[in-house]
């Protein structure tokens, strides 16, 4: 069917997309055989692996494109796999590989009908995501984009007996559609700018044209809105903390790990590829928006008591950091500072890849905890490290990664981002010079808060004593789940320990988007450490840090065993001499978040119920709500309702009135016509 035979990687990727579609169709045929249905997920995992491999091959080959004879009469499907798409293909393929394997094990105890439904929707979603990355014209892109939106919507509401799930799904669907409308408008303006008719919808033609700055800014704003609805930065974030908790855990992982990243892919595609001559204020806008989003996400995730809500706010935080990275890239690019733009782009892509890997790990681990205990509320967990040693050990890696401490992967991207902030001292505008390094302060504050959040998440779930009696029966994750968690934790370690190799993956994309020379020279690679010459001289060698940590600890253990061979004795805890001690005396999730609520009190919309001093059964309760929900979302909802009431006034259920409307419209048109 392929008219123009493309190069290998694109063919592989296309074949994988077709295979996912076949798997989705097969789920209909196999809807009564649970084992075969779960085997479909293993097939999907194999496809994901191939997709990632195709991405890896495409990195080191020139961009390939092809057309399929589908679509509109004069606009066949244009497909292309370039370096930027390849980076995201690797991200998507690797994450989907782990999530598919996990799902195959996770659905063991589900009803067959539900497995069948999920298998169909899940593979349709994978195929749609694959096509979004391969699309090279606006038509395919939007078809794939919308397929992705509604198939993920169906997955989110797959627990559709829950009212909460349906409400969250509706919020997601509305946000996505508002975004899609903005994207259609943006593509329309881009196409109009090419003056090439239907052919102008192809990205290849758009790349060749430069829009006047005013029009380009409109396209940028529409694109930012449209992709922002997917990525979830402020103020379009409201669907994240609603949709993630109600979705099944593998779906949450796919949402946070991959779908949000496609919003990032879209913004990069628009600002650096299709509009290719960015203005400086776009960068400033995205930088400010990103930093505000990151702070918002970090503060709110510290105040959450539901594991998945906490993680979804932490996703908002990470998306904020990524957006700040894009803002910095665009700002440098607008002033033609290629070396720094490359550095900032690498920080952005690194953070994107990191977040996909560690957040999928954390969400999948949460799924295992949920399966084992039936509990998502942090206040009812605790002590799981004894019952679920595998999940606990692997999630510890994920928590360190999410907290952004060396030698784990979260730190590498933080380091690169801070280095690009520090380099920002030679803009032609002195105010920018002074203001931009201050952004680094916000990044560090966010990183510190992320560590706080991760200590809360991990400590309350896995450490301490079980807060409920039922937790004593918790069991560890099964084989398939364990393999998936191991894969992702291994990914975290690899990305953390080999930054120089990882950065090599981003060089082709940087060469495509910014400048081939700068992409080659920006970071000096080495197995042990990576070194930066562009703006400042700096090194970071995670392998040395880890090696030294391991070496010194091992030496200490050996020396102490010899010098101080006192035996170990297990006793009741000391606890300052108090011997009454129950599991309820540990910090709850509310308790652990209390300092944050107090320090950042003005940022929260909070309701606190304090018991009276003399009460015999005191109850303390606090509720933290998102002020934007009240300041923005509810007023919009109300005004939409009011507008629909006004529209309802026009409907009179009498044919004469409708004839009158038609007549008046005709008169107006006749008056306007000449």
């Amino acid at each position, binding site marked *: 069917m392929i008219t123009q035979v493309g190069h290998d990687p694109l063919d592989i990727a296309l074949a994988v997309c077709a295979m996912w579609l076949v798997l989705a169709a097969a789920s209909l045929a196999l809807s009564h055989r649970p084992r075969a249905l779960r085997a479909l997920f293993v097939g999907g995992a194999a496809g994901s692996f191939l997709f990632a491999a195709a991405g890896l091959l495409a990195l080191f080959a020139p961009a390939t494109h092809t057309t399929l004879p589908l679509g509109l009469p004069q606009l066949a499907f244009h497909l292309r796999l370039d370096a930027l798409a390849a980076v995201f293909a690797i991200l998507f393929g690797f994450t989907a590989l782990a999530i598919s394997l996990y799902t195959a094990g996770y659905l063991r105890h589900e009803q067959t009908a539900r497995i069948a439904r999920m298998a169909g929707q899940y593979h349709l979603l994978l195929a749609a995501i694959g096509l979004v990355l391969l699309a090279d014209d606006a038509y395919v892109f939007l078809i794939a984009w919308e397929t992705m939106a509604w198939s993920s919507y169906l997955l989110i509401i797959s627990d559709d007996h829950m009212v909460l799930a349906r409400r969250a799904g509706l919020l997601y669907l509305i946000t996505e559609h508002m975004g899609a409308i903005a994207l259609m408008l943006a593509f329309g303006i881009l196409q109009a700018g090419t003056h090439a008719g239907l052919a102008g919808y192809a990205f290849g033609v758009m790349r060749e044209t430069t829009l006047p700055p005013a029009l380009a800014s409109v396209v940028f704003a529409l694109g930012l809105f449209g992709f922002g609805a997917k990525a979830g930065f402020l103020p379009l974030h409201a669907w994240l903390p609603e949709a993630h908790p109600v979705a099944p855990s593998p779906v949450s992982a796919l949402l946070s790990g991959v779908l949000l990243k496609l919003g990032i892919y879209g913004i990069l595609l628009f600002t650096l590829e299709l509009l290719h001559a960015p203005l400086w204020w776009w960068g400033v806008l995205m930088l400010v928006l990103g930093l505000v989003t990151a702070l918002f996400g970090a503060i709110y995730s510290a105040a959450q008591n539901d594991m998945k809500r906490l993680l979804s706010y932490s996703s908002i935080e990470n998306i904020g950091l990524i957006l700040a990275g894009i803002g910095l890239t665009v700002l440098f690019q607008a002033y033609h500072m290629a070396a720094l733009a490359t550095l900032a782009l690498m920080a952005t892509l690194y953070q994107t890849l990191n977040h996909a890997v560690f957040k999928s790990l954390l969400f999948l681990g949460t799924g295992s905890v949920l399966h084992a205990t039936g509990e998502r509320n942090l206040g009812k967990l*605790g*002590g799981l490290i004894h019952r679920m040693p595998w999940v606990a050990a692997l999630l*510890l890696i994920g928590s360190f990664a999410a907290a*952004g401490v*060396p030698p784990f992967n979260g*730190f590498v991207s933080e*380091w690169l981002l801070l*280095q690009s902030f*520090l380099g920002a001292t030679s803009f032609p505008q*002195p105010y920018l010079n*002074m203001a931009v*390094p*201050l952004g*680094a*302060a916000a990044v560090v*504050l966010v*990183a*510190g*808060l992320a*560590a706080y959040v991760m*200590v*809360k998440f991990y400590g*309350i779930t896995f*450490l*301490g*004593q079980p807060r409920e009696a039922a937790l004593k029966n918790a069991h560890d994750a099964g084989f398939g789940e364990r393999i998936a968690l191991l894969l992702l934790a291994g990914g975290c370690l690899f990305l953390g320990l080999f930054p120089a190799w990882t950065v090599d993956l981003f060089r082709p994309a940087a060469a495509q988007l910014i400048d081939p020379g700068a992409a080659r020279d920006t970071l000096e690679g080495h197995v*042990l*450490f990576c*070194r930066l010459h562009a703006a*400042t*001289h*700096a*090194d*970071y*060698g995670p392998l*040395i*840090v880890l090696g*030294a*940590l*391991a*070496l*010194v*600890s091992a030496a*200490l253990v050996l020396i*102490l065993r010899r010098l*101080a061979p*006192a*035996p170990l004795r*297990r*006793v*009741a*805890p000391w606890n*300052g001499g108090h011997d009454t001690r129950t599991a309820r005396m*540990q*910090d709850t999730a509310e*308790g*652990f978040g209390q*300092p944050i609520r*107090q*320090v950042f009190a003005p940022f929260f919309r909070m309701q606190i119920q304090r018991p009276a001093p003399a009460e015999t059964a005191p109850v303390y309760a606090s509720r933290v709500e998102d002020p934007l929900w009240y300041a923005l979302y509810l007023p919009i909802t109300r005004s939409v309702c009011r507008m629909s009431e006004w529209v309802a006034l026009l409907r009179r259920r009498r044919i004469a009135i409708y004839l009158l409307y038609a007549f008046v419209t005709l008169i107006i048109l006749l008056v306007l016509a000449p």
Partner: protein
Amino acid sequence: MTSRALILQCLQCALVFAGAPLLAGWVEQCRAWFGNRHGAGPLQPYRVLRKLWRKELVVAHAASWVFRTAPYLLVAAMIIAGSIVPLLAPIVPLAPAADAIALVGVFAFARMVSALAAMDIGTGFGSMGARREMLIGFLAEPALLMVLFTPALISHSTSLAVIVRQLTTTRLFLYPSMAFAASAYVMVLLAENARIPVDNPDTHLELTMIHGALHLEYAGRHLALMEWAGAIKLATYMAIGIALFLPWGMSATGSASGIALATGLLAVKMTAAGTALAAIETLLAKLRLFRVPEFLGTAFMVAVLGILVHFLLGT
């Protein structure tokens, strides 16, 4: 050059590892003198460590491997931090491992490990200490990084060895921005090392503890390691302060005579810094916990002022 650099690195590791308790003992001794007490002498920390080593190792039933590995990881992290900071000469073979930003990251890693270990047994004091420690950590970390950014912007590098080399070659030239950074740094040092006015290292009242609550469940050699890690952290912070704000006297080439001179000067500087720390602690009173954010916020703003001054004056 390389063998000399390696010897220098080993010397520095040994100095940090073995000398840190002496500095902690000296500070305690000065505090005793300022408080009109005799004090136990600057060697007291060594005696405490020896006593703890000999004691039986007692671990709570509920403790997992997190609790038992934490002391070793903490000491290892602190030794790494102490080995990266230029101490006697701006020649540090381990410097490629971590620059100033990664150094702050290593401290953050250590803080997370100790907070998680404190939560492991599930006592009220442990988790309370953990959340307070993390609160101070996330407030102090940005301030510390802003402090480090000022010299990084002056020398166009975040590598500590490069920064110190740059600062030592411009002899006795005072940067106004560094004055702001120095005062912010002192505040961060007080907070990060659990000193008055942020935390009282001598308190026996668990409810007011921050750092002490993290150690409550530790005993025997584990406790010895935790105490040692604390001493190395203090020494490392002192060393960073000296390297950034009083770097003069370091040996530029690493020759034997230069190193001997630098070691002598370092001893003088450390003694003076320890005395100053004891004086600050004696003169101030402990802050309420929720005044600490204001204290660290001030440190942050002062550090930011330092950066702004750097941009305004262009030096």
